[in-house]
C-alpha cells in the first residue's frame, strides 16, 4: 500500500506541476514556394478607429485585386496589442500569413530573425523599383546596408492637435511652437478649468516615440554608433526628464494620464476635456469619435527654440506601416503582386485617404487629396523634420525597456514622488541592463 500511495503522490505531483507550467513551441525551416497560387493570407494592422472599419476599408480593395489577378486574399485585421506576438509566433512556428503589415520601427528587429523576404533590387524591380518611395520612409525599413525587410505602405508623423475653442477661451491666438510656450499656454488653459496636454503615460510605444524626439532635441542618441545601448548618457537623461517633467514639474499633463494606455487621451481630446494632444495622423480617429474637423487645428510638434528642422530641431519620428512578405509563403509570386497592388498609385491614394496618413509613394503623394492643411503639416514634417528610430536589431527590446522606464517615472510623478535627474538615470540604468548582452 505504501509504495502505491507514494507512486500516486508522485503521479499527482507530476501531473499537477506539468499542467501548471507547460510551455511549448515548434520549429521550422524552408523558404517560399508557389504551391498555392490562388490564395493569400494578409494580416493587416489596425489603422482605423476599429477593426470593423478596417475591414470595411480593405475588403473592397481586396475584391479589386481578385478581379485583376484571380487571387483570393484572406484578410485578418490584428490589433496592435497582439501584432508583434503574432508575428513572433508565426516566425517561430513557420505557420503565418503570406503578406503582413508591421510597425515600421520593428523593421530591423524582425529583419534579424530572417522571417521576411529581403527586398533586393531584383525584388524591388517587380513592384516598380525602389525610387518610387520617398527616402524618409525607406529609412525605416531595416538596418542600413542590408536589403530592406519590408516596403513602406503608410507614412505618418506626429503633430500637435489643439482645440480651437479652448485656445480662444484662454486667449491664446496661435499654437505653441516651443516647449516653454506649451507650459505657458498650459497655465492659461488650466486657469480656465480645462486640462492642458494629453499623454498616454502607461503606453510603452507612445512613451518611446516622444522620448526619442526629446532625445534628438537634446542632441542625444539611445544607441552608440556601433549599435550598443547607451540609455544613461546625459542627453538621454535630460530628454526623458523633460518629457516626464511636463507632468511632474510643469503640471501641464494631468496626473491621471499616467495610467492611460488605451488611447484615453484621444477620447479626452475628442470630448473637449483636454486642449492639446500630440498624436500621429489622428484625424480619422477624431472624426470617428465625433469631433468635427473644423473644431481643432494641427501644428508641428514644438521644439526647444526656433523652428522644426533636422538634428536638434527634429520634432517627430518617421512613423508608419510597412508591408512585408513572409519568407515561408506558399505563394511568392502572388505575394509580390499583392505588394505591387497595395503600393500602386491608385491604392495608395484610396488607403492613405481612408487612414489620414501620407503615401510613402512619391507620385501618389502629389495628389491634391494630400494637400489639405492637416496633411500639409504631416507631409512637411516627414519631409523636413522627422527622424527614423534607431534601425538596430535590438529596437523592439529598446522600445519595451525604455518605454517601461518612462511609464514607471510617470507613475512616480503621479504619486507625487520627486522625479530627479538621479531617479531618471536609475530607471534608465535598469532599462539598459535588460538589453541583451553583447
Amino acid at each position, binding site marked *: 500500500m505504501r509504495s502505491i500511495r507514494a507512486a500516486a503522490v508522485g503521479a499527482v*505531483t507530476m501531473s499537477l506541476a506539468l499542467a501548471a507550467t507547460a510551455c511549448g513551441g515548434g520549429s*521550422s525551416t524552408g523558404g517560399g514556394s508557389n504551391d498555392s497560387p490562388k490564395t493569400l493570407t494578409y494580416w493587416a494592422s489596425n489603422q482605423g478607429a476599429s477593426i470593423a472599419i478596417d475591414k470595411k476599408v480593405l475588403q473592397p480593395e481586396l475584391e479589386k485585386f481578385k478581379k485583376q489577378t484571380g487571387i483570393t486574399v484572406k484578410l485578418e485585421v490584428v490589433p496592435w496589442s497582439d501584432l508583434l506576438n503574432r508575428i513572433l509566433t508565426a516566425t517561430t512556428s513557420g505557420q503565418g500569413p503570406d503578406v503582413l503589415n508591421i510597425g515600421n520601427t520593428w523593421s530591423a528587429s524582425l529583419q534579424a530573425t530572417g522571417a521576411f523576404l529581403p527586398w533586393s533590387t531584383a525584388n524591388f524591380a517587380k513592384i516598380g523599383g525602389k525610387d518610387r518611395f520617398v527616402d524618409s520612409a525607406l529609412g525605416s525599413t531595416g538596418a542600413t546596408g542590408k536589403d530592406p525587410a519590408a516596403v513602406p505602405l503608410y507614412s505618418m508623423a506626429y503633430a500637435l492637435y489643439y482645440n480651437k475653442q479652448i485656445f480662444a477661451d484662454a486667449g491664446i491666438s496661435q499654437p505653441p511652437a516651443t516647449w516653454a510656450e506649451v507650459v505657458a499656454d498650459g497655465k492659461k488653459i488650466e486657469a480656465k478649468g480645462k486640462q492642458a496636454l494629453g499623454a498616454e503615460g502607461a503606453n510603452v510605444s507612445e512613451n518611446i516615440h516622444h522620448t526619442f524626439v526629446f532625445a534628438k532635441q537634446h542632441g542625444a542618441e539611445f544607441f552608440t554608433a556601433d549599435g550598443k545601448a547607451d540609455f544613461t548618457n546625459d542627453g538621454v537623461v535630460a530628454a526623458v526628464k523633460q518629457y516626464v517633467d511636463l507632468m511632474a514639474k510643469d503640471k501641464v499633463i494631468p496626473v491621471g494620464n499616467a495610467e492611460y494606455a488605451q488611447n484615453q487621451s484621444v477620447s479626452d481630446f475628442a470630448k473637449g476635456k483636454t486642449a492639446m494632444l500630440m498624436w500621429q495622423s489622428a484625424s480619422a480617429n477624431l472624426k470617428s469619435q465625433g469631433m468635427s474637423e473644423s473644431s481643432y487645428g494641427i501644428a508641428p510638434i514644438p521644439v526647444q527654440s526656433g523652428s522644426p528642422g533636422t538634428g536638434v530641431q527634429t520634432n517627430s519620428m518617421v512613423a508608419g506601416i510597412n508591408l512585408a512578405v513572409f519568407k515561408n509563403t506558399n505563394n511568392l509570386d502572388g505575394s509580390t503582386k499583392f505588394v505591387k497592388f497595395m503600393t500602386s498609385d491608385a491604392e495608395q491614394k484610396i488607403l492613405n485617404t481612408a487612414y489620414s496618413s501620407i503615401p510613402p509613394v512619391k507620385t501618389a503623394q502629389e495628389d491634391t487629396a494630400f494637400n489639405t492643411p492637416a496633411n500639409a503639416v504631416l507631409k512637411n514634417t516627414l519631409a523636413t523634420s522627422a527622424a527614423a528610430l534607431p534601425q538596430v536589431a535590438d529596437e523592439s527590446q529598446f522600445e519595451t525597456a525604455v518605454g517601461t522606464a518612462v511609464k514607471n517615472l510617470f507613475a512616480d510623478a503621479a504619486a507625487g514622488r520627486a522625479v530627479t535627474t538621479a531617479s531618471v538615470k536609475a530607471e534608465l540604468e535598469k532599462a539598459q541592463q535588460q538589453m541583451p548582452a553583447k
Partner: protein
Amino acid sequence: MRKNPSDPAAPGPRRRRGERIRRIGLPYLLLLPALILELLVHLVPMVIGIVMSFKELTQFYIRDWGTAPWTGFGNYKVSVDFSAPVGKSLLHSFFVTVAFTLLSVAFCWLLGTVTAIYMQDNFRGRGFLRALFLIPYALPVYAAVITWVFMFQHDNGLVNHVLHDQLHITSKPSFWLIGDNSFYALLIVHVWKGWPFAFLIVMAGLQNIPKELYEAASIDGAGMLQQIRRITLPSLRPVNQVLVLVLFLWTFNDFNTPYVLFGRAAPEAADLISVHIYQASFVTWNFGTGSAMSVLLLLFLLVVTGVYLVITSRGRRSADV
C-alpha cells in the same frame, strides 16, 4: 475475486501468471488513451521547453531553432545570479508572487469556507445567493478583469468615486493600476475571481458530513464554534487538502489576471512571476532565458507540491489511526 489457492481446480502457475498480467494490465490499458494525450499535450511541449532552456534562443535564431547555439547552464546562471539585474528582478518577482499567493489563497479559502458554512442552513433565497456567488467564477476572465480595470481608473473609476468622492476616506484619488497600490488591486480582483471556487468545493464537501454528528454534538452541549472546530473542519480535511493545493497552483501561475489588468509591463509592486517570464521571453525576445525561468518555476512547484502532499497525507494517516 481471488481464488482459493488450496482449491484443487486452481490453475497451474503458468495460467495464473497470465491471469495476473491481464488483471494488472487492464487498468494500464484503460489509462493508455489518457496517457498518450497527456504526453502529447503536456509532456512533449515540456520537454521542448526544457531543451530550449539550454539554448541561446534569441531573435536571431527563432526562425530555425536548430541553429541556436547550446549554452549549457548559461540561461540558468543568468536567471539565478541574484546580484545581477536579471536574477535580482526574478527574485523580486518571486517574492511578490509568494506574498500574493499566500494572501490570495488564504482569503479565497476563508471566504469560501465561511460562506459555505453559512449557506448550509435552508433559508429563503439560498439558491439565488448561491448562483450570485458563483458569477465571478463563471464570467470569462477577460470580461471580468477589464471591468475591474474601468472600476480602478484614477479619474472616472468607481472605486475612487466611492472611496474619495462619497466616503472621503482618501485625501485625493488614488492610483490603483500603477504604483504600489497595484498589488492590492491585483489581490482584490484575484480573490473576487477565485473564492467562488473554494465556496463551491467546500459546499460539496459539507454535503457529505452526516447530520447525526451535529445532532449528537448539540445533545452533548457543543456550541456552533465547537461544532465547526470539532466536526466540520476535520471532516473537510481531505477536501481542503486538494482545494488549497489547487488554489495555490492556480494562483502562483495566474497569467490572465495581471496581464489584462496591467498589460505587458506590470508595475513592480505587482510583478507576478508568470508575467515576468512572459516579459523575459516575449518582450525581450530571449526565449532561452524565459524557458530556463519556466523550468526553475516548475522545479519549485514540484518541490512545494511534493512536500505538501507528503506532509498532509502523513498527517492524515496518523489521524486515521
